[in-house]
Structures are given as structure tokens and as C-alpha cells.
């Protein structure tokens, strides 16, 4: 498969992912504003100061949706680079497999570190 054709194929995956993330963000924002919209900004102080690891422990569907939409966007980027690495592996294009693996590793380390912090 040609590289450009492959890139066009991955569009479908990215498109589905970004739509899902945007739907989650709209849903989360809607519910969140219905619950907390009338409060002053200081009323959501715990949410403003929480780390992403803590956000998933809020046990509020709206916060969960908001956090998930954001992580979906990061996950799509990560998966995309991973797919490119796998593609180069299948093409036995070793140099570019190494380059894309380095990028995937750097991206995943960055995301994982931030989540755990």
C-alpha cells in the first residue's frame, strides 16, 4: 500500500475518534453546566486544581465525560503514531519504523507521566 493511500485510510479512524471526543465534550459540557453553571468560578475550585489522575475519581458523570473527551484526543494522537509505526514495520522500512517508534515512545511517556502526576 502506498504511503499516501495509507494516510487517507487512517483518516477514517481519526475522524471517528475526533467525532467521539467532540460528542463526549458536548455531552459533558451540557451536563456540567446544568449542574454547576450557576455557581461562581470559585465553586469549582477542586476541579480547577485537580490533577488528571484525580479527575477520574470525582465520580461525577459530567466531569468524567469532560476528562474522557480530553484524553480521547490524546489517545487518538498516540494511536495514530503507533499505527504509523506498525505500518512501517509491515513494510519492513526499518529506519522509519525506528523513527516512528521513538516518537510513539516519547509521546506515550509524556502522556503516562502527566497522568500519574
Amino acid at each position, binding site marked *: 500500500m502506498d*504511503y*499516501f493511500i495509507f*494516510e487517507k485510510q487512517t*483518516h477514517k479512524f*481519526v*475522524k471517528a*475518534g*475526533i467525532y467521539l*471526543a*467532540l460528542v463526549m*465534550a*458536548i455531552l*459533558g*459540557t451540557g451536563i*456540567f*453546566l446544568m449542574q*454547576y*453553571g*450557576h*455557581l*461562581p*468560578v470559585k*465553586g*469549582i475550585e477542586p*476541579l*480547577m*486544581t*485537580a*490533577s*488528571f489522575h484525580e*479527575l477520574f475519581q470525582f465520580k461525577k458523570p459530567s*466531569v468524567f465525560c*469532560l*476528562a474522557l*473527551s*480530553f484524553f480521547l*484526543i*490524546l489517545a*487518538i*494522537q498516540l494511536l*495514530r*503514531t503507533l499505527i*504509523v509505526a506498525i*505500518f*512501517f514495520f509491515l513494510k519492513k522500512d526499518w529506519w*522509519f519504523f525506528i*523513527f*516512528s517508534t*521513538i*516518537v510513539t515512545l*516519547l*509521546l506515550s*511517556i*509524556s*502522556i*503516562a*507521566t*502527566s*497522568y500519574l*502526576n
Partner: protein
Amino acid sequence: MTVNELFLSIFLISATAGCIGSLTGLGGGIMVIPILCFLKFDLHFAMGTGLAVGVTNSLVGTALLKRDNLTYLKLGMFLETGIAIGAILGALAVAHLSVKFLTILFGFVLLATTFSSFFSNKKSDMKKFDAFDKPMPDLNQLLYTKVRLAASWCFMFIAGSISGLLGIGSGVLKVLAMDMILGLPYKVSTSTSTFMVGITAATTLGVYMSHGYIKLPLVVPAILGTALGGYFGALWLVKGKTGPLRILFNLVILGLSLEMLYKGLSL
């Protein structure tokens, strides 16, 4: 200010920034940061929000807008190694640098980007521009000019560091390197740059998150606003007459960059 007002204001700011970013070809992130700073938001939080906007813009631009995608994956992945390393180092340095330094640097980068956008106005007119305005070089051909590849890698490392330091995707710098150093066709450069901006911004975003610069109530409405604004901006760019508007918006950005410089110098 209530939560409703915060969400609405961030949404409107980022929708406007996304639209202007699409029309001027600067992207959303670099637009959101000066506007948020202008409205007295903390620079670090503005930069974190700008990064989230950069990732979204890249995904929206790649998946929803560029139907004639011409991403040069091989070159993109090679150059991205330099950018990602630079971006992580830049993002790690952010916590140790003063707001004054970052504001002045941002002002200069915004100023340079605006001038670059001014002079490439004709090129970014998608209606008139042919996809392959230059012959497409094969990567094996490029490998023979190792000096050029090494130069573009170094340039990308610097672009990545700036991206990490300022919370922007530095798409304009990437296009500049691919266009001027490697001689790629313009649409291939922009498409590959859009692809790379997402990875750069996502890598930087991780480090910013660990610094605590990413605030969900700022980031999510910004993502929604930029996705909407960027989408309509790009549609407008393709279908409508945007020449005078783009000049006007470039002047607005010029004003914002001067304001950032003044703010930085008076801190």
C-alpha cells in the same frame, strides 16, 4: 464570574481564534494564548489551553478538512523525532523560566509568525494553489542532500523547543523549514506540518499537565470552540472571499503581538 460565563467566554474566544487561525493560516493555539492573556488569564494556563487547541486543530484539520491529504509520513516521522525531543526539553524548562521572559519570547514569535503569514498570503489561497507546485522529491533523493536533512532536523528541534516553551504547535516554522530547506511542494508541507503539530502539541501537553498548567474548565470549551471556529474558518477560506479580512486579522494579530511585547517588557 459564574461557571456559565467562564465557559461561554472561553468558547467564544477560542471559536474566534480558531476561525481567524484558519483564515490566516496560523492555527488556533497561537491565537488563543494572546487573547486569553489580553483578558488577564495566567500565561501558563493560557499556554496549556493553547496546546489543547493545537492538538484539536491538528486532528480536525487532518480528519475533517484536508480531503486531499498529502502527508509525507516518512519525512514527518523523521523530523518529528527532533521536534518531540525539543518540545519535551522546552516544556520541562517552562517551569524554571520567568513569565516576563516567556511573554517577550511569545511576542517575538507571534510577530515573526505574523510577518511570515503576511508574506505567504498568496500561497495559502487554497482555491488558486495547485497541490504540486513543485516536483515532489523522493525521500531517497533527499537523503543524498544529507546536509539539508540535517539542517531541517536542527531547525525542527528549535521549532519543537519553541513549541514546548510557548505552548504552541509552531506549524508556521515547520512549513517554513520544509518549504525553504527541503523544497517540498507547499500543500505537502502544510499537510505534513498539520500532522506533526498534533504530535508535537500532544507531547508538550503531557509535560504541561504534569506541571499542573492544564485546567479542564478552560480546556474543554476551548477545544469545542476551536473545532467549530476552525472548521467554519476553513470552509470560509475555500468558498468565500477572504483577502481583505485576512489582512485585517493579520493586523489584529500584529497588535496582539505588540501588546504581548509591551506587557512582557513592563512586567
